């Protein structure tokens, strides 16, 4: 078999004894100590309809995009934020970490190695969260439909709210998609996060089928 030493890289996730600068010794088990293994749960809409409507309006008008360019679609994100297309006027903003973001734009093809990072980043985002699938590659594999390293259907791994077709879609298409997403959120139909919680086992099984080095908890809180 292959002599590739895959194990070596992940040695720092094994149990070990760490000495602090003060000289104190304590045992660390990264898989237990750093992570929580609770499952996500479904968030039903607020029972008071006007409040829910107001909350949805707030969510729709402050779209914070995670600045993680997962594929070639990311190249149109920068022009989108600059003077000629200026997405900021629609309440769109770019954030550096998943903790501050509400919208994840998957920029095109997702290779298996990136898929693992996509899953983690998606799960780390605070709810309510939405996913835009940019480019044809997220829909059916696009150009790379027969490639051994890119996923064909993104919605088997994380829930997608709005798809954008094209290779490469123009920035205007992305603006239109953001508009569509806003409409969906305002009408309370953007339920990707709840869908993920409801079909959690199915999504996990699909993810674990392709991500072979599963060295993280089932849900990254």
């Amino acid at each position, binding site marked *: 078999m292959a002599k590739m030493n895959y194990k070596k*890289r992940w040695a720092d996730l094994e149990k070990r004894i760490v000495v602090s600068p003060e000289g104190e010794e304590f045992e660390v088990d990264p898989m237990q100590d750093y992570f929580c293994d609770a499952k996500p749960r479904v968030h039903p809409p607020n029972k008071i309809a006007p409040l829910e409507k107001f909350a949805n309006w707030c969510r729709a008008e402050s779209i914070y995009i995670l600045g993680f360019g997962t594929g070639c679609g990311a190249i149109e994100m920068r022009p989108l934020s600059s003077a000629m297309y200026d997405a900021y006027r629609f309440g769109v903003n770019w954030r550096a970490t998943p903790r501050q973001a509400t919208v994840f734009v998957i920029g095109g093809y997702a290779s298996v190695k990136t898929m693992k990072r996509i899953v983690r980043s998606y799960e780390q985002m605070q709810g309510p969260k939405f996913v835009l699938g940019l480019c044809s590659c997220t829909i059916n594999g696009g150009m790379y439909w*027969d490639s051994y390293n890119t996923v064909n259907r993104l919605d088997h791994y994380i829930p997608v709210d709005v798809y954008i077709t094209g290779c490469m879609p123009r920035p205007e298409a992305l603006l239109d998609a953001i508009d569509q997403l806003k409409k969906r959120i305002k009408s309370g139909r953007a339920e990707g996060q709840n869908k993920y919680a409801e079909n959690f086992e199915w999504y996990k099984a699909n993810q674990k089928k392709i991500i072979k*080095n599963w060295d993280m908890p089932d849900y990254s809180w």
Partner: protein
Amino acid sequence: MEQIIENIKKQFTLSDVTTAHGTYITCEKKDTVSLLTYLKDVEGFKHLVLITAVDWIEDNKFQLTYLLNSPKLKTELGVRTFIERSVWPEESEMQSAHHLWPAAKTYQRELHEMFGIDFPGSPEINDPLILEWWDDIPPYRRDFDTKKYSEETYYPREGRSTNDPSDYMKDQLYPREGEKNA
């Protein structure tokens, strides 16, 4: 260029010299690294452009190509060598050239991962460069079927049809008699 090849021939046995599209010479496997050393130190081919492999599955051989560039002579020289193509999971073997160019390390890591050609002694050779936990035939080998693998693994979406372009165009341009009437 002819002068250089004459010089090489004095010391090494070359089985093939092609000059159709750039100069490519073929040498024996055991001579390769010493030939590369000679070319780098004596003839001034200082810049390693690329190392790559070609899978000649019919002849059961891997062709390794070292492409060198001489900034002084402004020319390129390809050094080819043929090594035995092992059946996976056995790995083929080749001497490493990382001591000549540190940049060769990356090329050799990629070849090890993508073709299953081992370069003993090369730094980090067993660290995966591109793929994560790959457990199939190395993907760039000819006997690895990427379409089959993709269909088995990644849930293809229905509705995509594939046509052989030449047949499809023939049908479009010259429809067969029965279809034309219908």
